């Protein structure tokens, strides 16, 4: 059985959990609790949020989806997670410009030192105050060849489109 991995990253509350839930064939293993959960407050120094989903491609091939923790103090885990990944989806909460700087930091981390195939998913496009993908591209200072896709992470079709775009980027780089 061959296993391949994609990583879904983004700032806190960008929609990583929803994104993976929308497409995973298993109940997503989510270690993150709702922000209202008091235990989070009690243990916030020692616990970390992440998500894990899975898609069976064929009998001999499985795709794993890993959501990274959004909190800055867990940057060191991104390194571990990114090992051997096929590609990366960067999720952005299009309604919260205050997270764009953090999103840029995440993109820099994953992309600066390696040639990682990635796309940006402009999430929460169903909200009235969402920045459009074009606006986001500018805000994030992304070059034209980087795909910035409109996305609603709770909508499976939308998530499929984002993953397919990423796969097309990966396909261009793969060998015959």
């Amino acid at each position: 059985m061959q296993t391949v991995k994609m990583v879904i990253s983004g700032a806190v509350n960008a929609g990583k959990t929803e994104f993976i839930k929308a497409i995973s064939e298993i109940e997503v293993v989510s270690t993150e609790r709702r922000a209202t959960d008091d235990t989070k407050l009690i243990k916030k120094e020692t616990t970390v949020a992440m998500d894990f989903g899975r898609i069976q491609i064929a009998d001999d091939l499985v795709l794993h989806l890993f959501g990274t923790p959004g909190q800055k103090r867990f940057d060191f885990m991104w390194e571990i997670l990114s090992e051997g990944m096929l590609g990366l989806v960067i999720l952005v909460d299009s309604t919260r410009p205050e997270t764009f700087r953090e999103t840029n930091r995440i993109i820099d981390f994953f992309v600066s030192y390696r040639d990682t195939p990635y796309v940006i998913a402009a999430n929460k496009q169903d909200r009235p105050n969402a920045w459009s993908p074009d606006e986001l591209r500018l805000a994030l200072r992304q070059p034209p060849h980087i795909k910035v896709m409109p996305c609603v992470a709770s909508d499976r079709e939308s998530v499929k489109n984002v993953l397919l775009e990423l796969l097309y980027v990966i396909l261009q780089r793969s060998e015959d």
Partner: protein
Amino acid sequence: MALVGNIRDFGLSDFLYLVDRGYKTGGLHLKHNDETAILFFERGKLILASRKDEDRKGELLVRLGVLSAEQLSSVMQQMQQRGNGVTLTQVLLDSQLLPAEKLQSTLQTHNEESVYGLFGWPEGEFRFEQGQKPATDSPVMPVPVPVENLIMEGVRRIDEWGRIKDRIPSTDMVVKFIDQPGEKAKGVKLAPEEWRVFARINGRDTLAEIAQKTNLGDFDTCRIVYGFLTAGLVEVLKKPKPAPLTSSARGAQVTEPPRLKKSLVNRIINRIRGM
């Protein structure tokens, strides 16, 4: 029929797993020397835990500072007036003397701490009375708490190889995610070291290899994986024997991962398209 045993032989984390997976309702009575404890579960989730008899009465809420003695007295009177098996928690919530969230968080913290202390018991008799419910005047949490985090925290406190070896006899075993973690895996919170191990699980590496890659020792790696195992996230298998090399593969760099083929990417694309 009660389930009886000793946590020396069947650890508390294992029992919690059983309660959880079996959606058990009932009371788990524990005894170690002159200490006792009781945990109540409803459909596999914790609703009350106490190490003292007096913690199973409304006075606990006064001691924890969320109700005054007068308020408690008034609530108890209302309980009696309403009768019909109405519970203390129900009356408290209806009376709106304190917010439900406050009641939940106070009791949850108290209950969790009560449970964590039990993991330090090296041995102790237990008896699980199926279907047993707490008395109506007990301070039951409004929202039952999943036990996965209790298990993970409990396993963090395990410091004996013996118990771990029961489930993980060798570091040559391979760890893989179970195919359907389902509801059980939701809400599990991992510490950074656990998370490092979690991210290394790929169905191929042995525990020894994971220990090496994470720079955690064999014991810590096994202890962490034991936690995942007990919480129902992973399974541990014997490493399969390598397939005999074909003539074309002989001499190839087996440690070097193959570069991605277009055909493989196309297979994934086709699968995603068809979803």
